[in-house]
Every structure is written in C-alpha cells, then in structure tokens.
C-alpha cells in the first residue's frame, strides 16, 4: 500500500540543538510532498512544500528520491518549534493528501 511513514512519535531536543524529523514515502513516480505543523491550540498549517525548495522558520526539507525520504531539518531548535509535525503526500489522482502519523517535537530550554 502507498504510505507515508514517520518513524518517530516523539522527538525531544534541547534549545539550540539540531533537530531532524524523518519522513519516508512509498509512492512511485514524482512525489508531491509537504510538511504541515500544528502548534498548541492552533490549526494545522502548511510549513513547507518540496516544490518550492524554501526555508521556513529555519526549517528545510530535501527530497531524496533514491531513499524515498523527505526529512525535515533545523540546525538550531527553538522553544517555539515545539509542535506536532506531519509529513504528507499529494496523490496525483484526485489531489488527495495522505498524511504520516505525525511526530511531536518538544524543545526543552
């Protein structure tokens, strides 16, 4: 089955340390991948799109087709980065988003 996998349920890091959230996908072809974030008491919102190759809030994500991965990275985590992060794949058929299970990031002071 086509899936998006986030192997870590929880990542706990200290402020200023690097953080990397893993995402693997099992789709063939050219994937359309996203990272979404949900801060406490806020709605789910788009963080990054792989097609834009942008850096948002210090986060970057690189698509590695050989490893079928789209890991999210930030070199120096901040306390305000504590949130729930979801990796998602947009299926070409129907423009439907499939989400991974999510990773909760806790940045400790």
């Amino acid at each position, binding site marked *: 089955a086509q899936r998006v996998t986030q192997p870590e349920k929880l990542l706990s890091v200290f402020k200023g340390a690097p953080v990397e959230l893993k995402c693997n996908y099992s789709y063939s072809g050219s994937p359309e991948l*996203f990272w979404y974030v949900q801060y406490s008491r806020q709605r*789910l*919102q788009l963080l990054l799109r792989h097609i834009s190759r942008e850096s948002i809030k210090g986060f970057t994500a690189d698509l590695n087709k050989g490893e079928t991965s789209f890991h999210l990275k930030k070199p120096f985590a901040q306390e305000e980065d504590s949130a729930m992060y979801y990796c998602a794949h*947009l299926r070409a058929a129907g*423009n439907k988003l499939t989400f991974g299970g999510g990773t909760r990031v806790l940045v400790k002071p």
Partner: protein
Amino acid sequence: EADIYQTPRYLVIGTGKKITLECSQTMGHDKMYWYQQDPGMELHLIHYSYGVNSTEKGDLSSESTVSRIRTEHFPLTLESARPSHTSQYLCASSDRYGRNYGYTFGSGTRLTVV
C-alpha cells in the same frame, strides 16, 4: 478575510442523535475535504468534493455523509451518533491543483458521543 470556518468547535451529544458539522470557506476553492483524526494519531480522509454536486468517499470508511450544494459549504452529517464516532473532524480546502499551496485547514470540531 478569506478563510475556512468550522462550527461547532466542540460538541458533546448523546447516542442516537443526528448531528451536522458545518464547514464553510471564503477562499473560492473548488476542492474540499473532511479528515478524521483521533488524538495523537494520523489524519484519515473520509470525504472529498471536487465541486458543487460532486462528493466521494475517502480512504477511511465512515458512516457520515456529506453534501456540496454550494461551492463554499461542505457540511458533514451523522444520522445517528454513536460513541465510536467520537473523534476530531477536520475540514480543508484547496485550489484546483493542490500542489501550489497545499490544503488550508479549519480549526476542527471535536466530537464526543456519550
């Protein structure tokens, strides 16, 4: 301000009651979606719509139904609520291609059936 709105934010209701969760967007998006999410778990697509009078079931089987009579409105209905329907329901919308800006999500409705 263009946005997507869900009401109610929280709903506690008794078993057997009929409920409708409201979702409206003022973004002019063609496509709308309903996701179900249990606490700390992944989101599952339960319904989607490509436009007026177009609705399809999603990946996760759901006893709920939806309608799309107007572009901006995509309500979800449960004819007879059961405790197994307790969950968070998220509504989302996207432009025609989705890949450009992804989805915009509402704040969600947290439903508890007692």
